[in-house]
């Protein structure tokens, strides 16, 4: 049984590597900029959702305020670049670090709350942060920040002529988030987080310091989401509070993981690959009427999936192989 477990882990890793290679080759055949744009967003949301999944899926602390860390990443990078000329690469790390620290500072009081109360706290805190940024003149207030174009370069992480560099960066980000999850899954933290999610009292009795476990999950999760936010700022080159810290981002991070399979390794990827293109396509094909038909279709689909497959889309695979534990 020991080898079986090791085999499954290796199989996951090989599968991920194969998928990454295939994904990397796609732009060679798909030249359409609109489609490439969707692919970038899909990969970005896969990465974000994978990061969200660490705190909310594995550790079971459902956050609907992760837009806060996304926005922090975006703002840190944009502000450091426009005000101090700091390269986005450093901004990215700074944004990640700041987010991780803030996640722990917020976790300190919030992790004493359980269940719904915790969820509400995350929503409220993100909304407060949004209002604060909207009124912070130095950071552009409600108008936001225009990131000046200084020519295409990897150093400044700006590309105006092609979306490909963004695509490859988003792919790398998705791979990193996946790999971090894969690696943590079979680490002390991974076991602790799942134990905390399933039964904090039992976990505590087995020597798991529940509070610290949650703090660790929050820090890792926030760091990765902030890096995603930094990327997004560079990608769209203009940010304002609502467009990087709005509540919809919190939802869009949670949905792929929830639909794909919350607390699973493949859930977020699977969810993002299905959900994000669907969002974009319904918007462009039936969203033109202005009556919100796209949102109705989109919402209906989410309801159908969650009713038919309450354990997420990954459970289809475990049904096929007839093994329950494959859903992990």
């Amino acid at each position, binding site marked *: 049984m020991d080898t079986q477990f090791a085999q499954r882990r290796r199989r996951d890793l090989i599968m991920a590597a194969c998928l990454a290679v295939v994904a990397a080759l796609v732009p060679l055949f798909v030249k359409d900029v609109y489609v490439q744009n969707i692919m970038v967003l899909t990969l970005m949301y896969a990465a974000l959702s994978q990061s969200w999944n660490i705190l909310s899926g594995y550790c079971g602390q459902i956050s609907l305020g992760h837009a806060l860390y996304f926005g922090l990443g975006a703002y840190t990078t944009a502000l450091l670049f426009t005000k101090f000329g700091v390269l986005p690469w450093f901004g990215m790390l700074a944004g990640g670090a700041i987010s991780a620290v803030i996640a722990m500072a917020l976790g300190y009081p919030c992790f004493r709350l359980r269940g719904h109360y915790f969820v509400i706290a995350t929503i409220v805190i993100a909304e407060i942060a949004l209002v604060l940024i909207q009124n912070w003149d130095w950071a552009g207030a409600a108008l936001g920040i225009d990131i000046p174009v200084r020519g295409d370069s990897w150093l400044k992480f700006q590309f105006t002529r092609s979306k490909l560099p963004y695509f490859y960066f988003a792919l790398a980000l998705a791979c990193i988030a996946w790999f971090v999850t894969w690696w943590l899954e079979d680490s002390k933290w991974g076991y*602790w987080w799942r*134990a905390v999610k399933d039964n904090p009292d039992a976990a505590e009795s*087995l020597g798991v310091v529940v509070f610290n476990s949650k703090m660790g999950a929050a820090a890792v999760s926030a760091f990765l989401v902030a890096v995603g936010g930094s990327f997004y700022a560079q990608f769209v080159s203009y940010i304002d509070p609502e467009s990087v810290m709005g509540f919809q981002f919190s939802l869009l991070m949670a949905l792929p993981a929830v639909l794909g399979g919350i607390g699973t390794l493949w859930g977020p990827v699977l969810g993002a690959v299905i959900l994000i293109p669907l969002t974009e396509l319904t918007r462009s094909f039936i969203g033109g009427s202005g009556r919100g038909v796209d949102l109705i279709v989109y919402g209906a689909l989410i309801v159908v999936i969650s009713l038919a497959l309450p354990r997420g889309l990954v459970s289809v695979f475990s049904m096929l192989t007839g093994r329950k534990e494959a859903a992990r």
Partner: protein
Amino acid sequence: MTALLETRGVWQRFGGLVANSDVSISVGRGEIVGLIGPNGAGKSTLFNLIAGVLPPTQGSIIFDGEDVTRLPAAERCQHGVGRTFQVVKSFETMTVIDNVIVGALIRNTKMRIARQKAYEVLEFCGLAARADKLAADLVPSEKRRLEVARALATEPKLLLLDEVLTGLTPVEAQTGVELVRKVRATGVTVLMVEHVMEIVMPLVDRAIVLNLGKVLVEGKPTEVVRNPEVISAYLGDRHAVGA
């Protein structure tokens, strides 16, 4: 040698309710001690105090020569207190072996070794065949054994068993009794709460009877069951007269 566990004048009050009043007990190394008493006697509260779920209102708890009164549950586990829960608390979405790995991780930092260790504990508890099943799919008696396995994986010096034998069929209960004996044979001290007298009495070296939050009597199981006070606590005064 000094006792492994000692509670000194422990009180626990919940508002106006006194769950434990002035409880002083001691458990020697290698003993199997039964903690018995009618419903509401304060057994579970005392267990929670020893396991560190909550600090006592008053009094102190000495474990392995150290005052652990103020230590939280996770640190008590580190010191060597393992426990099971009366209402089983399996990690339902995790496999059986993963449940046990959580416990094994406190003494083993290498994942491969923790997994190995967890597997050995499952074999010891007769659950190895179920290792890759989800904990949610176990039958109740298996879940009870998983509780024990998980606690054993933390390599406790003292194992607190909270009604692990209650609600089992006679055959299952007998298997449970044998498991407890096996655990003791490995050098682990056992303190167990049980309701079912006929199961506990042959198993334990010593019985402590709690009633209304106080220690009523303690002694050899054969003596304890004949004690008029114990009979009256369980069955009412009328029955105690004849004893």
